[in-house]
């Protein structure tokens, strides 16, 4: 009896938490289906009185979403591919070879998590400009490739791969680089997938790099486009709500497809970007 009461209590608390976490999104979603006139008319109602997609239509026609999706998608996909490759190579070197300079470099990577580059953005901007990357998508991609999280995730994983595998490959005369690409990298596929999902999310939702690098509205990513709506003196809420919902769609699809990998990810070995 006591057990049952406890179970009931826990379930009730969990339900309350869920409602609290769901309300902001629900209110936002439902509001996006209200006509502009209904958004501010009192009394507010939870459900739209007359459902409409007019906000979506306006948002879609007024903003060049295909372009923003294209820009953001290109940046997110390319950066993710490069991040996975670079992280895997670096993590592998740090896990499977012993040299003093590797140890030093590991500490360097660790330092990047303690000192995020947002903090030094004025000089980072100057560096990007000197490299000729200002106002180009490459200017967002290249500086975002190296992430400590990715390196740590692969390093942690490759440490669990027995050294005997590497020794065996050496005895068979397989070169170090070929061993990595044809034996080790395929082994680390689960880590690569997890990192790819996380990296895609970081890049899709990134704001600060695009903000300091991009100038031409034609190269804007989704987040910058949204920011230009919300930063206006008179916010057009009907458009803003719909545009925000549209920007979420790719992430939702990604989550639905990779839900299992995301929710079971053990990130303790890595670090947040």
């Amino acid at each position, binding site marked *: 009896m006591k057990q049952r009461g406890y179970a009931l209590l826990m379930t009730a608390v969990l339900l309350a938490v869920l409602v609290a976490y769901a309300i902001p999104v629900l209110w936002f979603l439902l509001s996006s289906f209200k006509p502009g006139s209904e958004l501010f008319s009192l009394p507010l109602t939870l459900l739209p009185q007359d459902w409409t997609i007019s906000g979506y239509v306006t948002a879609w026609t007024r903003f060049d979403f295909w372009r923003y999706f294209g820009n953001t998608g290109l940046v997110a996909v390319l950066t993710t591919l490069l991040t996975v490759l670079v992280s895997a190579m670096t993590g592998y070197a740090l896990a499977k070879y012993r040299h003093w300079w590797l140890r030093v470099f590991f500490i360097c990577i660790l330092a990047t998590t303690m000192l995020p580059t947002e*903090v030094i953005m004025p000089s980072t901007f100057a560096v990007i400009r000197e490299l000729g990357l200002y106002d180009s998508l490459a200017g967002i991609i290249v500086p975002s490739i190296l992430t400590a999280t990715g390196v740590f995730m692969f390093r942690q994983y490759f440490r669990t791969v027995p050294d005997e595998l590497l020794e065996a490959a050496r005895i068979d005369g397989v070169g170090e680089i070929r061993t990595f690409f044809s034996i080790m990298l395929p082994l680390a596929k689960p880590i690569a997938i997890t990192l790819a999902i996380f990296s895609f999310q970081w890049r899709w939702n990134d704001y600060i790099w695009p903000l300091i690098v991009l100038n031409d509205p034609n190269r804007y990513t989704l987040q910058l486009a949204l920011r230009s709506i919300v930063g206006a003196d008179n916010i057009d809420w009907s458009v803003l709500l719909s545009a925000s919902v549209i920007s979420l769609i790719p992430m939702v699809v990604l989550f639905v497809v990779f839900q299992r990998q995301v929710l079971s990810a053990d990130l303790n070995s890595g670090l947040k970007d």
Partner: protein
Amino acid sequence: MTSVTDQVSLEAAPATVRRDRRRPPSGQRLAPALFISVSVVLFATFFVGPAALGIWYSFTDYSGVGDAEFIGAENYAELLADDQFWASLGRTALYTVLAVPLHFVAALFVAVLITSPAARGKSLAKIVLFVPWLISPIVTGVIWRWLFGENFGFVNHLLALLGLGTVRWETDADWALVVVLLAGTWGGTAFNMLLFVAAIRNIPKSYLEAAEIDGASPRRRFFSVTLPLLAPTSFLVVLLGTLGSMKEFAMVQALNGGGPGTENMLLVQYIYRTGFERAEIGYASAVSMVLMVILVLVAIIQLRFDRKEDLA
């Protein structure tokens, strides 16, 4: 489960006892050098470079164009007398002090709930709780701005219906900060929850069962068994939370732009404003250097603290 610092100490330990003293063949030196080459270049270009350049700029009057002229410590002197700088620094410190415990408790609380064998509906709960992770900081700001609008928001509408009167979520600086705290916690729970859930799963069941047999109450089991065993993860959550709060920017941009006025302008926004909107890169770099020193100190203090925990 190992925290970052554990890995460092492991790394430093003489773990290579069984290795022979023979020098490894050159391939085993060339290959790792090649593997890390791209990372090294990126690290030097986008981390060391800007950091060094930032130190130099902070002693100049660089405005983004033309030459940077050395002006000694003038920027720093000006900074000491800059009220807006102190206000931003104070607000950032206040935000961090409030946000870190809030993020920590919220994430641990939901992690315990969804790993509790007693509660029902956990798989649905995990998905619902994870939704905020999908949402970008900008859209998170939009969502909370919409919810807490002073004249049109759902929350004020409910408060008015309950006869509690409306709250000045936008025009009162402290209430505005409360909204930022709530939105930040909401957005940050999912990631920290994942960390805690993984750590809780790794706690051997036998520990908790033994405590239960000894008659420990659920609360006692949590505070005396679970929480101490989560220490490495707790440390990570606090460290990441502190760094994340100190550099909060995007979400606030969309939520209230640091308003009302500049009362909730946090440090990174202040750097952005001076460096990019007012094109005082030299001055902004001086602010950056102050923030950098603070972050290094925070990291050192917390790493120290973590070491002590390990010894206890």
